[in-house]
Each structure stands twice: as C-alpha cells, then as structure tokens.
C-alpha cells in the first residue's frame, strides 16, 4: 500500500496504516514523508514500512514488530521504548536513539547523536541491538541495563572519538562493542573496558551480518579491525549510596 504523506498529520497517517493492517495489508510505502512523527508507533504486527523522505521524531516508538526502512536520515527519539522490530537508517540518526529499548534492532549507517541507547534493557529472549555505522556523541549507553550497542566508527576522521563523554555511565547490564577505542576520559564510572573474546567475535559477526546486508557493507571488512568491549562492573551501580 502506498500512502502519500504530503499534508497528512500523524494521527491520520497512523490511522490509515493501522486500519490497513487490520485489513490484512503487510507492506507500506510512505512517500513524501517530511517530519511526520510517530510512524510505526505502537504497532505490534510484523509489517514492512518503507519511508521515503525524513520521518519525524518518535519513529518506531513503543513499536513491537514492524520493519521500517528509511530512505535517508532520521531525527530524534527513534525507537523510543521499542519492544521489537527493525529500523534501518541509511543516513544518520539524531539524539536519544533507542531510549529504554527492550527488543528489536536499529541499524544506522552513519553517525548518531547524543544520549543513544540510554537505559536499553533485555529481558528473557528479548535483546535490543543498536548498531551505529559511524560515531556516537555524549552519554551513549548511559544507564544501559541490557542489550548490545555496537559502534563501528566507519569513515571516522582521525582524532574524532568514536563515542562522546560519559559513555556508559550508570551502566548495569548489557554490553557496548566499539570498533576501535573510546578515549579513556570518555568512559563513564563503573564501566570496564575488556578485550573481545572469540565468542564475542562470533556473536559480532553474526550480529553484523544482517546489518551489512541491509546497508550494503562487507562483514569481513568490518570484522577486520579490532573491537573493544565495554561492560558494567556491577549490576548494582548504586549499592553503596545509602545509609540503611
């Protein structure tokens, strides 16, 4: 189903999509999207949504199932509290990407903004994955409680850090994998930097495979460079704060 988003407000657009899903439609091509918010929000069916243009904030918020393919870049708060599904971004992403994301995957080809992957968490077989092709700004993986946040640093000019300051501060679960190094001064309290194990290596290869397929990259090329792994030193970062 093709929907021309020109002049459509988000409520109307989403209603059209939801109505069509209820009627059995599984594929959507949204044309001329320019800043429409909440695309895919709250949808819990496995449908395909292709977006031509630039979607607005809260793309894929509270989403649980759809596969969203964007044509270029996206704005802020993408995959907010996302429960499942896929978001593929060939361009860059704004701030607060994947906040409190519990499941599904977000693939960004280029850079991402500030505060990405905050409070990501995993539960049982739900494990959220965010892969950033380029770099991330400050506060990446803050309060991270589960899942995988992978930063590849592709096309990084020399001297540019792969992740900004306070990377992983308050982290108490999950892991960040950085292809290259995060400057020590940028690494948050309670985060340890570890070497990649053979197991990690396998996991990364498997995780990156669909990413590379979706964005036309070579897995082995990416795997060729060394990764480091950032993990929480404790699942109880604030155990010592209080007088009981």
């Amino acid at each position, binding site marked *: 189903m093709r929907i021309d988003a020109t002049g459509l407000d988000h409520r109307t657009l989403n209603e059209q999509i939801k109505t069509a899903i209820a009627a059995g439609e599984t594929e959507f091509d949204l044309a001329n999207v320019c800043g429409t918010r909440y695309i895919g929000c*709250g949808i819990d069916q496995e449908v395909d949504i292709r977006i031509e243009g630039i979607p607005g904030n809260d793309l894929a918020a509270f989403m649980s199932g759809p596969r969203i393919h964007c044509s270029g870049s996206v704005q802020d708060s993408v995959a907010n509290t996302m429960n499942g599904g896929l978001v593929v971004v060939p361009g860059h992403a704004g701030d*607060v990407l994947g906040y*409190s994301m519990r499941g599904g995957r977000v693939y960004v080809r280029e850079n991402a903004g500030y505060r990405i992957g905050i409070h990501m968490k995993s*539960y049982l077989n739900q494990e959220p994955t965010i892969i950033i092709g380029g770099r991330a700004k400050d506060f990446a993986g803050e309060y991270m409680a589960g899942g995988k946040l992978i930063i590849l640093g592709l096309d990084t000019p020399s001297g540019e850090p792969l992740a900004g300051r306070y990377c992983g501060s308050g982290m*108490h679960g999950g892991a960040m994998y950085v292809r290259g190094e995060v400057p020590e001064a940028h690494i948050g309290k309670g985060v340890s930097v570890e070497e990649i194990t053979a197991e990690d290596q396998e996991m990364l290869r498997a995780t990156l495979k669909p990413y590379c397929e979706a964005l036309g990259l070579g897995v082995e090329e990416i795997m060729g460079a060394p990764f480091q792994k950032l993990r929480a030193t404790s699942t109880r970062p604030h155990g010592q704060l209080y*007088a009981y």
Partner: protein
Amino acid sequence: MPLSLIPAEFNVQRDADLCIECGVCTRQCAHGCQNIDPEDGSVSSDEKLCVGCQRCVTLCPTGALQVVQRAEQGRYHAVWNTGARRAIARQAESGGMLLTGMGADKPFPLYWDRLFLNASQVTNPSIDPLREPMELRTFLGAKPDKIEFDQQGKPLTKLSPQLELEIPVIFSAMSYGSISLSAAMSLARAAAESGTYFNTGEGGLHRSLAQYGSNAIVQVASGRFGVTPAYLENSAAVEIKIGQGAKPGIGGHLPGEKVSADVSATRMIPQGADAISPAPHHDIYSIEDLKQLIYALKEATGYSKPISVKIAAVHNVVPIASGAVRAGADIVAMDGVRGGSGATPTMIRDNVGIPIELALGAVDAQLRKDGIRHRASLVVAGGFRNSADVMKAIALGADAVYIGTAALIGLGCHMCQKCYTGKCTWGIATQDPYLTKRLNPEIGVRRLKNLLRAWGLEMKEMLGGMGMNSIDSLRGNREMLRGIDMTEQELEILGVLPAGR
C-alpha cells in the same frame, strides 16, 4: 567492628505479668529484635534493632508488649536533638545518603487543618444523603469547551476518553516491587470493586493483575519498566511520571535484591539487577518533548485513553502544570511535598517541593484564568489523610485525589518508615515470601473497600451539609472554604476568605 554509636530509637516494654512466653512476638519480628531463648523458652528484646513497626505489639495475645519512642536521650538540645544526632551517627558509620520511607514527617503547615468547610443553615437547606441521591461520580479527562449540535439536534461534539470514578479518590502510584503483590492485588481489586482506579507505579502490571487492567492507570516512567504495547493497551489511562512529591527531581531505584523472579518478569528486567529509574526521562528535556511523548502514547493507544502527567509540586508548578495541559495532558497529577515513597533520601523528602494545597490553589486559578481548566483534570496527591482533606482539595479545584499512604495504613501499615529495608513486617513493602504472606488480599480488599466506602459516606454527608447533591458543585467552589491562621498571601493563593468573612 567498632561500636555503633547510633542510639536505639524505641523502648520495648514487656509486662512480665502478662507475658506467657508464647513466642508470637519472636516469630513476627522481622528485624531480629524479639528473640526466644532456645534453652528455656524465655523471650527478650534487642532494642537497638527495633524499628517501631508495632507488629509484635499488635499480635501479642495478652497485650503484654508496648513499643514506645524513646524520649530525648542525653542532654537536651533544642537544635541538636536526638533525631539530628542519630542521623549524623548513621551517616558517619555508613557514608551514605540517609534513606527513608513514607511521606515527610516534619511538621509542615497542614493547610487542610486551617481550612474549614461550609454548611447550610436556614437560607438554603442541607440535603440528607440518607434519603436523596448524592453524587460523587467524577470523570477525569479533557472536557469540551462546549457542545455543538447538528441540524437535527444531535450532538457533534465528541468527548475525549474519560476515567469514570464513583468516588474521586484513586490509589496512587505504588509499584509492584516497592510493594508486595498482595498489596498491589488488594489495591487493584478494591479499586475495581469500588469503581475507582489504581496506579501501577513504574513497576509494570503483574500478570495476576492483568484482569484489573480496566481499572489500572499504568505509569510510564523514566525507566520504562514493563512498558510494552500490551501494557499500554491493558489500561484505563497512561500516566507519564515526571516527578514524585517525596523526591522531586530525583529518580527511583529498586535495589537488585528486591528484584525477585516475579518482579523481574513484571518489570521485564533481569532478576537481581538494580532497577534504576533515572531522574529525568531522557526523551523529555523540555515541554515540547513532553508533548512529543504524550502524543507518542496517544498514538500508541489509538487516542483511546486519557494521558496523565504526574509532576511534583515545586516552586514553578503553575507554569509546569499549565504547560502540561497545553502539551495535551488529559490529566495533570500533582504530588505535594508530603507525598509518600517507599524509599527516598530523607533530605530530599523533607526539604524539596511545596505543599499540595498551595500548588493546587495556584494551578487551578491559573488554568481557569487561562481558560484551559476544562482541558485537563487535576488530580492531587501528597498526604491526604481523610475525607475532609479530599473535600477541601476538591473545593480548591481538584477533580480527584490520589491516596497512597492512607491506603497503606488501611492495609495495615504502621508508619515505621522502613519500607526501603524490604522487611516490612506487615507484608506490604516487601518481597520476602515469609513477610508477604502476612497481607491476605481478601482482607486487604475488604479493608480498602471499607475505607473508600467510609470516606464516601462522609463526603456525601459533608456535601449534603453544604446543600449540594453533586460533587460537581464543589469542584473549585472556594466559597465553601474559609481559612484561619493564614497570612493574607496564603489566603490569596488559596483563593479563600478568612473565616468570619
């Protein structure tokens, strides 16, 4: 280990003439204070461990026990009283922030007690609620400005989604995790059976409570625990928690040891890991971000549920509340400085925020002035003790009231303020299976229903006394209030006349 300098807080008095050494006290104490000698069966108390929860006192079959707060210890000092010295000793020994539970225990001015309700005498009749219908039914949600009709006289105006309350009292946010499942179950069932609502807090909705979804206000807090499309769907309303009266500006933190298998499943986080709710929502850094989240939730729920925004009453609560209404909130919940909590740093609880009375008076007035009062309902929270407090709040302009502490006391809480230890001997603020059993939800539900019924009866009586038969006529009716012992400014903020005028 060096000697602890923290003085005992309580004196456990056991009347030897009455004690039959049955050992009930020793089995009920969760803090290790009451002990039975395995050799001769004699019972004794280690007073340093006593938290004053009164469990042993209540269960003692012969009334042999009394637990009383110790008088000031050592030399009297008006400033450096025992409490202040005890706090310092605790910190000197632990190096940690002082933690506490329940609402602030400092003697803040209670404006409720300085406000008086009106009653009819001669010039208009009071109404007898025993004989005549007395309406407490309240709807929460955005109301239309006016109703428009088509040519045939059919109303064109559509009503926004509403919560329908048979009594304008809601059980406020208490998460499963901070309270036991039995307590949560009691609240949920009592709400359902009394025609009101309970609030999940940010603990998710336990599977056994799913059946009460239509009476659940589900919270979306910064940790987003348990927030899934299904969670949002199975609810009566969704509440974005920005702040809490007991700890404005700071986040929440359920220690890993309380994250049991069941709590983990409900919050959808790993067992044993800390459940941290950061201070801010990292997707809300401004009022337009709030609007973005409000509409994200409206989209996610198909515009079928009211979206509430809960904020702590702080200094600039007026523009915040006004902003929330303009951002599309259907309900604005405000929690005052006396609001409760299962765990909060004492200094924050007792020093940050403002009383709900003043916040309500100011917010309601401003929203009316702005002509947007109908666009959101106001729910207020923070230390509502009785039906008169509720009536006064409604007269000040609230649509409904959240009660937390009152509900917990109804369930059996004895205000020892040790919720954060997870050793609640009343089975309320604990996940210890030995302790949670103590709250039988059958009893809990009955007690809460009784409480609401009793308040409802009183409210109807007061309403009738004021010559009204609908709570609608009290809402914002500040004519029904008079103040005493207040400054002109306080009176002005509350919008009430002094008693005698």
